[in-house]
């Protein structure tokens, strides 16, 4: 068998996944926290105080927005994550529906609360940013509205998952909703293009010509990477908890719990 396929099959077994998640979740969190700390420090020009190399780490103020633009380093990564996680959730859900892999059900459902949290962060930071920029917390602008609807979709997935009694059916039903909801993602992405919008248009491009000052880039990249690690950490943690909960009463869970008690 292809080693990758074999590894995937192995990972699908609940005890193996439990061990895998227990091992890697702390590392992911650690890496995420570290990279994000660097990114924030960089963005706030804390690193610029470093002796000697400080100038390398200087991020200038925006010529229009002054320092308030620095909230971008939370807002934009969170916004990207909110959409990325929804897509990932739908992919897991589709795999779970077609091949009935239980681990994928668990992973898909573990995505939802994390994605919802990122969506809330996007909305909150956007609102905070909007007050100085547009003079109002909220506007019925296409991008803002579609992001709010993304939150509703997340809440719908979570609500449906909790409303159904049997966990596997619940995960499959909620997964189907997630797949249907994917249609919203391009609407969010291109809302600024399709309708005339208050919101900033496509300014940042990872590849090709970007309309942002190059010195503003590196902290953003750090934040994007940091949030990814952080997400992997919480995904593993949540999936592990759900996995243990579903398997409660099985032999290996009892063994592991006993081992845990033996070594406090």
């Amino acid at each position: 068998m292809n080693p990758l396929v074999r590894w995937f099959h192995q990972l699908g077994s609940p005890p193996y996944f439990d061990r895998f998640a227990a091992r890697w979740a702390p590392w992911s969190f650690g890496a995420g926290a570290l990279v994000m700390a660097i990114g924030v420090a960089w963005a706030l020009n804390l690193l610029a105080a470093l002796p000697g190399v400080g100038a390398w780490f200087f991020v200038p103020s925006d010529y229009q927005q002054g320092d308030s633009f620095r909230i971008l380093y939370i807002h934009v990564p969170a916004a990207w994550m909110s959409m990325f996680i929804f897509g990932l959730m739908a992919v897991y859900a589709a795999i779970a529906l077609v091949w009935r892999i239980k681990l994928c059900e668990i992973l898909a459902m573990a995505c939802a609360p994390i994605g919802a949290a990122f969506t809330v962060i996007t909305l909150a930071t956007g609102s905070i940013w909007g007050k100085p920029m547009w003079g109002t917390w909220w506007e019925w602008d296409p991008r803002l509205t579609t992001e709010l609807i993304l939150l509703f979709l997340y809440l719908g997935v979570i609500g449906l998952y909790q409303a159904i009694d049997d966990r596997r059916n619940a995960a499959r039903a909620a997964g189907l909703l997630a797949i249907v909801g994917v249609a919203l993602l391009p609407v969010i992405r291109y809302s600024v293009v399709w309708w005339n919008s208050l919101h900033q248009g496509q300014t940042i491009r990872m590849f090709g010509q970007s309309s942002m000052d190059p010195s503003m880039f590196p902290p953003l990249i750090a934040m994007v990477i940091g949030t990814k690690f952080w997400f992997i950490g919480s995904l593993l943690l949540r999936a592990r908890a759900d996995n243990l909960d579903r398997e409660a009463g099985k032999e290996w869970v009892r063994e592991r719990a006993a081992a845990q008690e033996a070594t406090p």
Partner: protein
Amino acid sequence: MNDTARPVRMAVAGQPPSMPGAARALLVRDLRLLWRRRGDAFQPALFALIVVVLFALALGNEPELQARVAAGVLWVAALLAGLLALDTLFRGDAEDGSLEQWMLAPVPLAWLVAVRTGIHWATTSLPLLLATPFLAELLHLPRAQLPVLLAGLALGTPLLSLIGAVIAALTVGMRRSGILVGLLALPLYVPVLVFGAGSVAASAQGLDPVGALLLLGAGLAVALVVAPLTAAAAIRISTS
């Protein structure tokens, strides 16, 4: 008579159902039920009327203000009426066990779902569509915008019904889905509303509303194929 691909030893000579036959049986049944409860056919239209009246009352007596919000209010009323009627799509059949028999029938579940959704649209949204010119008049909608509004509703309400069928199917296993249906359906309804209400707004500003209407039509075409299949899958998941 025995025409399965892989022959089953059919002990009993009989007539298997055909897809048109099953659709006709479903149609006859639903029309009979509707006739038994004639009043129910007008309920969605009445509900929309009440929403419109509530709005007119809540806004106070300002015809000019009403005219500006008329198209929006009518779209929201249609949407809410459709939402409320959603619960009757499969729930009755689930509670008395009919849905089990649908799943066990030798015709595709998606076909039954599609037929049922069609009948449901014709008996709940169509009356509303017919009442729209009257409701529009109540809210002083400018006459010129009426054709656009009607075209939008004619394309949009079947789309809403099809999207709603998926949501209704997802929640059919639950005892009391209550407001959850609304929570799940409305985000998916939003694009329809945006394009529907947007087309009227465009025509009010003298712009061309055809683009938005075409998008609604494209959505409808896609949903006609995809929604029944998805809803059938959802029914199987949520009733097991």
